[in-house]
Structures are given as C-alpha cells and as structure tokens.
C-alpha cells in the first residue's frame, strides 16, 4: 500500500495502461515533453514511452477530439486531454456528432474507443475559463459515457477501466481534488467499473447523492451529524454521470425515503435533475420528503472574486444544513 494523491493516481493509471497496451497514446495541450500537462497528470510519461506516444497538440480542441476519434477507429486507445473542461466547447461538434454517434451511425460496425480527460470544477480561484463543470452538455447523449471519480482509489481504477472500454468516455477529473485528497491504494492491479454508483456509507435515515468536491463535504458533514445529531445517512458517490446507475439510486431512495442531491453545478438542469426525475418516477411511494437539491445558484458561471466564488459554491456548511433540514423534515 502506498499513499497517493488523486493526481498521482491518474498518472499511475495512464502509466500502467500504456505499459500494458502499446495502442494507448496520450496527447493534448502541453501534455508531452518535460511538462506533462499543466497539472502534471502526464508527467514523466513522454520520457518513459517516447514522443510518438505522448505528444503535444496545437491549441485546437476540435482537432484534438477529431484526432482521438480517428485513432479510435484505427484501433488505438487514445487518451486526449482538454486542458480545462471550459476549453472543451470548440470540440463539441466532433465529440457529439462523430465520436458519440459512431456506433449508431455504422450499425455497430465501428466504434471510437476514446478517453477524453479533462479537469473541471471550481474552488481554485480559476474564474470564468478555469472553473466550470461542462458535463451537462454531454449528459443524455446516448453513445457517450460521462464519468468522474471522487476518490483516489476510483481515480485510478475508473481511468484504467475507461481506457480499456470500447465506448467513448468523457472522463472528468476534479482539479481541486488533484492534490487535496490522498489515500493508500493497493499496489496490485485493480479496476473500478465506470457504470456503477458507489454506496460509500450505508444508512437508514436519508440518502445523500453527490460526486466530486462536494462529496468530500458530504462525507465530512455526514460523519459529524452521525456523531452530534445521530443522523444515519446513506452516502452515494454518483461517479457515472451518464448513463446513470439507476438501480443503485432507486434502491437507496426506496430504502431511506429521503433524498438530498448535491452538486457544484448550477441548480437548473444539472445531472441531479435527471437523478431526481428517475427517483420520482420509480420510488414515489417510498418517498417521505420532497427530493431536495443543493447546488450553485443560477448565475452563468463561477465568479472570480474570492467572496463571490465562495458565495456561489456549495460549501460544507450548506451541505450540513441541508442534511439537517431534510432529516428534520
């Protein structure tokens, strides 16, 4: 067992998969050479596997997506990095019209197994272009998987699974978690499924579903409230944003009857809207309270000013209060 950060777990996953499969290539803006990405996720890989397998691209996201898709069709497993999730927008046409639709368009004859990695999320004073969660654009697009790990263990295990998947996977990594969380993970190889939510903590009183940075707040608040208020909350890491692991979500909602959904995205039309609809459809007669959402306000995006960023973001205090309110409902 060795203690790694979330970022090191990402690096290790890519490293191991490149060693295992010569068809795995890595490219993107600044990912190659000595730099190894603006966050260092691919650090050391160019030296180890050469510039032909780990290389830089122009600042042209549509091209990155198109290249990855083409390589996928040719039998490679490309890992393409978008430097920030905010930068993905120029590549949307390639990702949705080509990569995502490939299997459907060719009647199942062709697929583009690509991993698009991208750091997302706020809380690092990144302002408009470096803080957004753009995942909602890609949710509900059959043919594409959208996932995000929330723990060190999952960061490695899910990325390895994504690289081995024959489906295109949009792999969101929370940039605040990169160096914030550390954990010991097994030295031997393991995989984590990319289509399953994870019940992190079992409980009876209510269910809290979250992912990414806010999940950290949820875990802390739940532990605290268990001790101080005796609230026994079940915590689910959503992980797979699309498609949803409906079975796990419905089962938990049916068990506890109270559901709190926490995301750092804007309140309207984020992934939790779909989670809420799914639970409402399937678990209505097991519900003991309105399905509750905690999210950022409906402003265009995260503010740069520190006080406004703080106000915008879901915080541990807000999470704690929301859990308390729901428990007392």
């Amino acid at each position: 067992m060795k203690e790694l950060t979330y970022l090191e777990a990402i690096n290790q996953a890519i490293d191991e998969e490149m060693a295992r499969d010569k068809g795995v290539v890595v490219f993107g803006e600044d990912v190659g050479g000595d730099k190894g990405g603006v966050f260092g996720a691919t650090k050391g890989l160019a030296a180890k596997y050469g510039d032909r397998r780990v290389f830089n691209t122009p600042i042209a996201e549509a091209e990155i997506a198109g290249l990855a898709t083409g390589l996928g069709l040719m039998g490679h497993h490309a890992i393409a990095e978008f430097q920030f999730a905010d930068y993905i927008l120029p590549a949307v046409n390639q990702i949705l019209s080509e990569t995502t639709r490939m299997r459907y368009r060719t009647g199942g004859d062709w697929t583009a197994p690509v991993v698009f990695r991208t750091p997302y999320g706020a809380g690092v004073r990144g302002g408009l272009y470096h803080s957004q969660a753009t995942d909602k654009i890609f949710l509900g697009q059959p043919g594409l998987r959208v996932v995000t790990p929330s723990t060190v263990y999952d960061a490695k295990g899910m990325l390895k699974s994504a690289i081995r998947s024959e489906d295109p996977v949009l792999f969101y990594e929370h940039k605040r978690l990169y160096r914030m969380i550390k954990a010991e993970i097994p030295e031997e190889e393991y995989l984590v499924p990319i289509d399953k939510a994870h019940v992190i903590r079992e409980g009876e009183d209510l269910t809290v579903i979250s992912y990414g940075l806010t999940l950290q707040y949820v875990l802390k608040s739940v532990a605290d409230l268990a001790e101080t208020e005796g609230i026994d909350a079940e915590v689910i890491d959503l992980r797979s944003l699309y498609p949803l692991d409906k079975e796990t979500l419905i089962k938990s909602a049916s068990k506890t009857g109270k559901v709190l959904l926490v995301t750092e995205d804007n309140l309207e039309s984020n992934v939790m809207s779909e989670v809420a609809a799914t639970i409402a459809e399937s678990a209505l007669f097991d519900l003991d309270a309105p399905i509750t959402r905690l999210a950022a306000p409906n402003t265009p995006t995260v503010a740069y000013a520190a006080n406004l960023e703080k106000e915008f973001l879901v915080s541990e205090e807000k999470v704690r209060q929301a859990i308390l309110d729901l428990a007392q409902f």
Partner: protein
Amino acid sequence: MSIEIIKMPGLGESVTEASLEKWLTAPNESIQKYDPIAEVMSDKVSTEIPASFTGVVKKLLINEGDMVPIGTPIMEVEVEGSTGKVSVNEVEETSQQPVATPEEKTGKKPRLSPVVARMIEENNLDVEAIQGTGNNGRITKTDVRKFMKSGAKEGIKPPTISEQPQTERPVSSVAKVEEVVPAKEIVTGDDRKIIQKPSATRRMIADRMVKSTTEIPHAWLVVEADVTELVKLRNQLKADYEKENGHKLTYFPFFLQAVARAIRQYPVMNSSWQQDQIIQYKDVNLSIAVATEEYLYVPVIKQIDQRSIAGIASEVNRLSRDIKQGQMKMEDMQGGTFTVNNTGTFGSVQSMGVINYPQAAILQVESIRKELKVVGDNEVAIRDVVNLCLSIDHRILDGLVAGNFLKAVKEQLEAYSVQTSIY
C-alpha cells in the same frame, strides 16, 4: 355545494391557543366572507374573527368558552359552487375527530408523504394515533415505523363527543355537562358558597402564574430610593401638565424612564430564558401593570428608552384608557421585555412580584412615603422615600447584576430635580 371548514386563525406571534368567547352567528344563518363570526380571546385580548367564506353556517364545532389551539376547525360552512369534490359526509367524518381532543390535534387533516400514506394504508393504521415528530408535527416514516414497532397496530379511532348528534347526547357524565357551560356561569352552589367556572381570562392568568412560579426560580431584592426631589419636580409641574394634556402627570413615567435607562446600562436585565437559550432583547419594551376591577393587564410601551417623560406619560394614559374601555389592541399587549408594576397605588410598601413569564425580571414600585431620615452626618430630615422591589429569574440573573441594576434605578430617581425637563 360543498362544506368548508373555518379554523381558529393565527392571532399573533407566540399565541398558540385562544378561547372562543361568543358565537356571533348560528347554524343555518347566512354569512358573508369577512363577516364577524365569533369573539375570541387570547393572551388577554379579545377580538372578532371574520368568516373566510360566504355561505350558510352548517355547524359550530366549538362550544363557547372552550380553549382551542390555533388552527383548530371551529365551524363548518356550506359554500355554494365550490369545486371541492369532497362530499358532506366525508368532511364531517374527518373534521369531527379532532374536535374532541383539541389539545392534542390541530384538527387539520395531516398531509402525508407518499410512503407514510402507503404504510398507513397497507398496515391499516389509525393516522390520528401516530405522534408526528417532523416539521410542524408531520408524521415521518420513522414515526410510522416506531408506531408499528410499539405494537399499536390497527389503532382504533377514539369515539368523540361531537360524533353524536347534539340532541342525542346522553347526559351521563357531569363532567361533560360542565364542559359546555359557558364561562362565568354559576355551575353549582348552596347557601354557604358560590362555585364558578373561571373565566377565560382568569384561567389564562392562572396558567401564567403557575407557569412562572413553577418554571422560574425567583429571587428578590429591595432597595430604598430617596425621591424628595422628584416629588418636588412633579408637584411643580402637575397643574400645568394636566391643563395642557388633559390627563394627570403621575410619578409612574419617571419610574419607567429610570428603569429604561438602568436597563440600557445592564441590558442582561432585558432577557428571556426560552428552551435552553437566553435571549437578550435590544429593544427595551416595558410591560406595565394596569389593574381593572376584575383583572390585571400588562400592556407594553415599546422602545420606551426613546421617549421623554411626557411621551411616556401620554402612552401610559392611552394604554390605561384603552384597557378601561375594553378596547386594548393585540399589538399593545405583546413584546414586553421587562415589567414595572406600580404596586404603590394600592398603598403597598413592600411586595414580592411574580415575574411576567417569560421575562427575566419584574420591578414593583411601592408607595412614596415620608420618613425621618438621617441626612449628612448629624441632621435629621423628613424625606420622601420609596421601596423598589425586584424579582429576578435566578437562572439568568445573579444578585450582583440585579443589585447594580437596582442601584442604577435608584441613582436615576435621585438625580431628578426641579430643573429636569420632561419633554
């Protein structure tokens, strides 16, 4: 046609129950929306409540003199052309149950969450028997589970008095008969005694006194103040003041001002112990005791520290006039943070006041009397003195702060002189 229910309306902050003193309408009478339908009394204020619907009075659900929680159904009204799908019978069935146990249920048909509704249906439970612990007494899933675990399955709906038609009510129990007798009416009596049901107001006073003396650990302090100069000041002003303002200038406004200023110095006096919290109020709202032949009322002078003596005097005059004419307003009866009681008007020289719950203290101002006092080192003089008797909530206030507070009141009173302006 459908049946609508009129409930006991909210009568102000912290008012949880009210007594229905008098019906102003009767079954089969037509009423218009906003017509007064009943006189109710809460917290020593009586008011009329308006009809919420236009229609025909179907049934009065509460007897005159009954005390019921806010939100209790009090009347059924048959309303023309309502969209309600509920049939008359169904409404009667559901609306009647709470009437018999007004203390426990608000009478509102509880809104059940889907899971609670399902569990109650599947297990054939009596929803009335389940104690809700959620917000506003909502029955939670956990409550149903606990109820089922406790073995109280198939709860039987309790029989209620009002389920039986009025005319067929068996007079089997004296207690029941007593319950429907309106307040103040003599119930029984013989040559040697008169037995009365306490009126709603007397009952409310009784409840408050019991609550205050059982909940609040009282402690008492007395100090004597020399008000010779105050007496001179007031005597100098009183004739002109009455001519100008149409009411007398008493000593009471001076005492109120002195207390308000002392509270400003020791704001902890302006506190309240409520559910394990000590709330300290920023506004100094003095409750003053006003006695009528029957009762003692405690109207409130809000933010009294911002008023002059003349301003306080006119407010005292307005409040006591309103009370004597039976026209006190709800807002004048609420929000007090400290009480000053003018026991001196009865000639009392010392008393132990009961704190006006849930305040933290009450000050009794006793009668001003002339006494021989040693002045300076070697002289004796006739001085005007007054006792100030303070009762404190010993949970919040200790002897030291109470003593300092009393000293501050005393100093304020002794600082008045013929030069003091009352405006």
